[in-house]
């Protein structure tokens, strides 16, 4: 019984960074912008979060630093892709390359240092309940934040006027512009929200998941988050489901390695990446579904006439 609870707990911990990064990117893509720099923003969040927490001793300052680092780093993308109308695919890639390099430089002196872990929430009484106690009331704070984010984003997109505007921009930026909706400003805000989320996701890695700094510790999670958005066909609740499926795959292969299943560990490690491909194939086979849901102006540069 305890093993099951522990596995479920670790799945939640593995799913949380994917979920946070993906929900941020979902908002970005709903506004019609494709930011492939999630991996780069995430690793910047991870290194800055770790560093701030280590230097101040406060994991909460670490969380804040991770968010701010991700948002500021995304601003670089926003300036390029939105103000200078550069190719979004290439710009996102360069954000990832730069992020991996910068984080390596910043983190040179952090390698091997003991990290500061964000403490789990503990509610006396409730957390001691059997099974559900730990699952529902004894997790790290970012777990709750991630769940809240999903519902907040869903509410924002489908229940508020500003959310409607954001979706309309993603559907047709030129129509939105003709109506006087400030396309570029909305997109800036969306990109920065995505950056803040990616940064927070990175912070989760270096403050909760494995409280230490390791180079390239995001290990492709930013890319998997991007795939999750496609998998979820741009729906927040489906991102939640997708993130937990991937969390399960990630944890499953780790446990399989630990149990000494007679398959080379490298093959098990490759599973999350292969699973991503399989899932993408399954979802994109349904061409009609993809076409219906993809924001129509996704990835296209917008330069208004003035």
């Amino acid at each position, binding site marked *: 019984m305890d093993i099951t609870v522990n596995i479920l707990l670790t799945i939640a911990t593995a799913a949380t960074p994917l979920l946070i990064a993906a929900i941020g990117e979902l908002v970005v893509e709903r506004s019609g912008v494709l930011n492939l720099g999630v991996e780069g923003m995430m690793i910047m969040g991870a290194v800055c979060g770790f560093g701030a927490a280590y230097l101040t001793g406060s994991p909460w300052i670490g969380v804040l630093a991770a968010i701010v680092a991700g948002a500021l780093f995304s601003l670089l993308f926003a300036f390029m892709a939105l103000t200078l109308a550069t190719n979004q695919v290439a710009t996102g890639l360069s954000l990832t390359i730069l992020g991996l390099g910068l984080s390596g430089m910043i983190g040179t002196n952090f390698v091997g240092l003991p990290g500061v872990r964000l403490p789990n929430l503990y509610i006396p009484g409730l957390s001691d309940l059997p099974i559900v106690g730990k699952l529902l009331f004894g997790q790290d704070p970012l777990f709750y934040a991630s769940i809240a984010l999903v519902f907040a984003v869903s509410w924002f997109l489908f229940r508020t006027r500003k959310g409607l505007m954001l*979706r*309309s921009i993603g559907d047709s930026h030129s*129509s939105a512009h003709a*109506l*006087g909706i400030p396309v570029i400003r909305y997109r800036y805000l969306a990109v920065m929200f995505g950056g803040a989320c990616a940064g927070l996701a990175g912070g989760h890695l270096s403050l909760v998941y494995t409280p230490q700094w390791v180079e390239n510790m995001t290990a492709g999670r930013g890319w998997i988050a991007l795939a999750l958005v496609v998998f979820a066909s741009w729906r927040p609740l489906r991102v939640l489901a997708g993130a937990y499926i991937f969390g399960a795959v990630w944890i499953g292969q780790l446990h399989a390695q630990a149990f000494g299943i007679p398959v080379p560990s490298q093959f098990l490690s490759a599973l999350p990446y292969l699973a991503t491909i399989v899932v993408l194939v399954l979802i994109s086979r349904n061409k009609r579904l993809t076409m219906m849901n993809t924001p129509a102006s996704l990835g296209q540069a917008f330069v208004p*006439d003035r």
Partner: protein
Amino acid sequence: MKSAGEAANLIEVRGLTKVFGTLTACNHVDLGIRQGEIHALLGENGAGKSTLVKMLFGSLEPTSGEIFWKGQPVKITSPSVARSLGIGMVFQHFSLFEALTAAENIALSVDDGTSLDKIAAKARDLSKTYGLPLDPDSLVGDLSVGERQRIEITRCLLQEPDLIILDEPTSVLTPQEADKLFETLERLRAEGKSILYISHRLEEVKRLCDRATVMRHGKVVGACDPSKETAASLARMMVGADVATAERTPIELKDAPELLGICGLSRKPAGPFSMPLKNIWLSLKAGEVLGIAGVAGNGQGEFFEAISGEVLQESADSVRIRGKSVGRMGISARRSLGAAFVPEERLGHGAAPRMRLSENLLLSRHATDRKAFIAPGGFVKNGMIQHATQRIIEVMDVRKSAPDPEAASLSGGNLQKFIIGRELDRQPAVMVVNQPTWGVDAGAAARIRQALIALARAGSAVLVISQDLDELFEISDSIAVMHNGELSKPLPRAEATYERIGLLMGGAEPGHTDPHRPEAA
């Protein structure tokens, strides 16, 4: 301070100028619109009408000049400023969102925080009052062009504007739908609203409008009372010269061979918002120009793709070119049989915008003129292509700024002349053209129409798909109508009237029965 005439103006612009780079789109334009009038803004494509109204609606920033609203100077810095003043706009290329519902679309231009349900209810009421039926919960992508326009107009009326700007509103309507629109507009005028009506259709301007302002090359060149003018005199003001109409000599087609045959062509909808084709039959003989009328979005694009071979058919027999069944052949093979195609969209379909004219020549002719243009080993013969490009440019009188410019740098009319010329240069036996003169100036349009007739009379078959009824009546020997993916029986020119064609465009008669069609499928 102001004279009485100015004081009566709801909106007045003085010296309004807009410069894009080296192009002066609007050059010191003066215009006044009175309370309760329908004011026409006339001009050819590229005369600066759209630029002018975009400045009035705050979508574009004037380079210089002043705007007065109810006598007060105003700066209209954004569409929401325009809306709060009381200016509403119905766009030519709709500013609607396909993936959103009608109600959501309407809500987007209501600047306060009214709830979606209230907006839907209000829209339903309003649309009933003005005879503009619509369903607030339907996805815009699923709607016809006419329905979309109703949403645009309802959206505009919901803000209770004093001035309504309509940009080419009838270009997407059947004659009967247009009549209904005119009733709505007349009712609005009776309520004291002002309407700025942009059109190049002179008959409807004569019928509807109280005053007219005419623009040419970015300048106001005249003002008049359209009811006192003739269509010809208005046209002369717009173009600055007499407008040539194409000459068409009648032709006897009895014994002419069939060059293009469409036999029971059907096609499933390709995307979420596209039209299926339903059992289309058609036969085109040598020497004939056949016109296909229809409101935009009734399957014309899908039909064109099916004939051209950009999309293959399930049955080889559904398309015949010069007696050969080509349903399973691609566009290059169909071209090699003597067919030529000109699609509706010039930039990005008929031509690659960022490629030079010579490269765009190769675009449609690399397969048919392989011997002339491609050397063994797959190398492109640049000299030969340049030569042919210059020939087409001369024959079609294509005006351009550089010896071999990028396609996107040409005006719509000149690029269309090049694209049509590129196909005519091959003397095709079958020519299929979608919207030959859409967005093209009058001079180029006349030239293109005459060239199409000449091609037919020299023994080719010409199929013209167009939403411009005047054009079809000018050049076609017979006219068929496409509605909802079905094609009517072609009417000989002598039997076709605007009214009959208009009814067919509105879906009055379902698809015709062809004598050759098998009884049961």
